[in-house]
């Protein structure tokens, strides 16, 4: 049984080095523009940085995947075509794509390039995945986190493709790549612009110790004096339906599937993916070390668990849908 490939986030060259030094087998990263789904200010790689970082990664025995996983803009598709060309030119080992048009371009222009299907393509059924495999020859698919272990096993039997699953980090509660909540409020969404609840639309107003977090015209959450504050991500908003004010869509909670590694391995998953390109170097070093030790040493230790739990959103964790249906 092949070992699980540990795929870590790299929001910058420094983070890439930290991830690989901590034991990642591969990292994924993006360019400094809308072509990737973590298009945050101050984050990501310039083309020269990507080339240098990829050389460094290869010299250290690790792979680099380039995320070009947003949807190209009508009338302005060149940015995505250029992203495909220049990341392959920088020597990356695979592209992580979502847009049918970008997949078509990549396949036609670079017949030998390795293509992975991003979770942003929202392909969660054997039929959907089979379409991308047949049409574009994708070699690996990153699954939406809502599938159970049983469903992943069934999928494995039906489609001949490598499977990558998320094992840690913040997860979307809506189908990835198909959520327009952010563009409804701010004009920018993860699908087209690579941002969700973008910072330029965020404001914090403190009055009498109560902090209100707003996104655009909408107040999304409020924090009592001393209460830990959070970022006004749309699906984590405090909403009112009738009488009560609740976190209708999701409580702030992180995915942590460190106890499921043996299960993933048993059902033939190829790789586990850690989320968090925007979380910084200390974060990636910590989580990669924990997962590396878990993968090599046969099980997570108490210290590793604690380290991971400290990095979970709101301090709370779940193993998501993997064990039971998340409905």
């Amino acid at each position: 049984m092949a070992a699980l490939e540990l795929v870590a986030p790299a929001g910058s060259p420094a983070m890439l080095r930290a991830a690989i030094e901590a034991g990642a087998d591969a990292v994924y990263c993006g360019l400094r523009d809308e072509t990737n789904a973590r298009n945050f200010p101050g984050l990501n790689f310039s083309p020269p940085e990507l080339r240098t970082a990829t050389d460094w990664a290869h010299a250290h025995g690790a792979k680099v995947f380039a995320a070009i996983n947003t949807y190209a803009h009508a009338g302005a598709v060149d940015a995505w075509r250029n992203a495909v060309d220049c990341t392959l030119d920088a020597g990356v080992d695979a592209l992580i794509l979502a847009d049918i048009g970008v997949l078509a371009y990549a396949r036609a222009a670079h017949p030998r390039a390795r293509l992975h299907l991003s979770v942003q393509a929202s392909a969660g059924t054997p039929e959907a995945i089979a379409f991308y495999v047949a049409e574009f020859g994708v070699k690996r698919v990153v699954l939406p986190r809502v599938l159970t272990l049983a469903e992943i096993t069934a999928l494995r039997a039906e489609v001949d493709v490598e499977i990558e699953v998320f094992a840690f980090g913040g997860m979307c509660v809506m189908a990835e790549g198909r959520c327009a909540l952010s563009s409804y409020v701010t004009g920018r969404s993860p699908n087209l612009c690579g941002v969700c609840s973008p910072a330029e639309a965020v404001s914090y107003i403190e009055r009498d110790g109560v902090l209100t977090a707003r996104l655009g015209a909408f107040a999304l959450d409020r924090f009592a004096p001393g209460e830990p504050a959070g970022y006004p991500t749309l699906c984590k908003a405090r909403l009112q339906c009738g009488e009560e004010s609740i976190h209708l869509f999701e409580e702030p909670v992180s995915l942590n599937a460190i106890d499921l590694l043996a299960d993933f391995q048993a059902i033939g998953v190829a790789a586990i993916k850690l989320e968090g390109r925007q979380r910084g170097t200390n974060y990636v070093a910590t989580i990669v070390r924990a997962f590396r030790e878990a993968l090599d040493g046969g099980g997570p230790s108490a210290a590793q668990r604690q380290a991971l739990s400290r990095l979970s959103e709101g301090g709370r964790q779940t193993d998501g849908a993997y064990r039971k249906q998340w409905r």
Partner: protein
Amino acid sequence: MEITLGPLLFHWPEPVARDFYARVADESEFDRVYLGEIVCSKRWPFTDEWLAPVAERLSRGGKAVVWSSPAMPSTPRERRACDALAARAGLVEINDVAAFTARAGRPFVAGPLLNIYNELAAARLASRGCVRLCANVELSLDAVGAIHRACPELELELFAFGRTPLAISARCYHARRHGLHKDGCKFLCAQDPDGMAASTFEGQPFLAVNGVQTLSHAYQCLDTPREAVAGAGVGALRLSPHSGDMIALARAFRAYEREKIGPDDLRHAAREVAGAASLASGYLRGEAGVAAAFS
């Protein structure tokens, strides 16, 4: 331009649905009607009772009927239903990539819930049988125009009225609101024929919940001159069914596309259906979706 009726997104009781579609068949301006329970398969036992007779009635009334596929099939039953629909003769609307393989190159409409945002993707689908694209709500009129210029043969349909679908999830939020799971949901979504209003904690209307689907609270309404819309290559205007007077609304849109009234005159019929909710058209202008219409 065609006036089309989008698939009914909400869970209406059978008598209400039948009456609605009877009026659509007998007295409406709709040229084409999309049919199918695309949001939640738990509703299928109910909708199965009336969808076929309604399709019959609509065809007799001279309306073109296009079956619409599930938005996010996931269970084996849903996937089989999706395949079955994709295998149908006649035109179908596809709302999830899962149906492409089964459709195998036969003609189809790419629904607004698909991620087709540019001419590269549109062209690829066109080469695989797509004859019409109903633009994703996030596409501005300019973006639609860019797709049109690159794919002039592809018919283009625009989401011209209704609460805009914004997200879909595996989790049912109607159930969650009442502390339940999707499995034991008690079909609470039937209580909200236009979606359950969700405001911010400050009381500002924000979203509308429809089971696993989240929509805008504001009703999108086209407020652009017909010339600009036609110029972008749009050949059909889709009105999403709500509980207000859709017949009068369709009449207004017909008058608009025949240039008997200007965009501003759509406001009255739109207000009738939207009720207290606001009208928005930001997406069409490339702005935040919530930005007000007719301003």
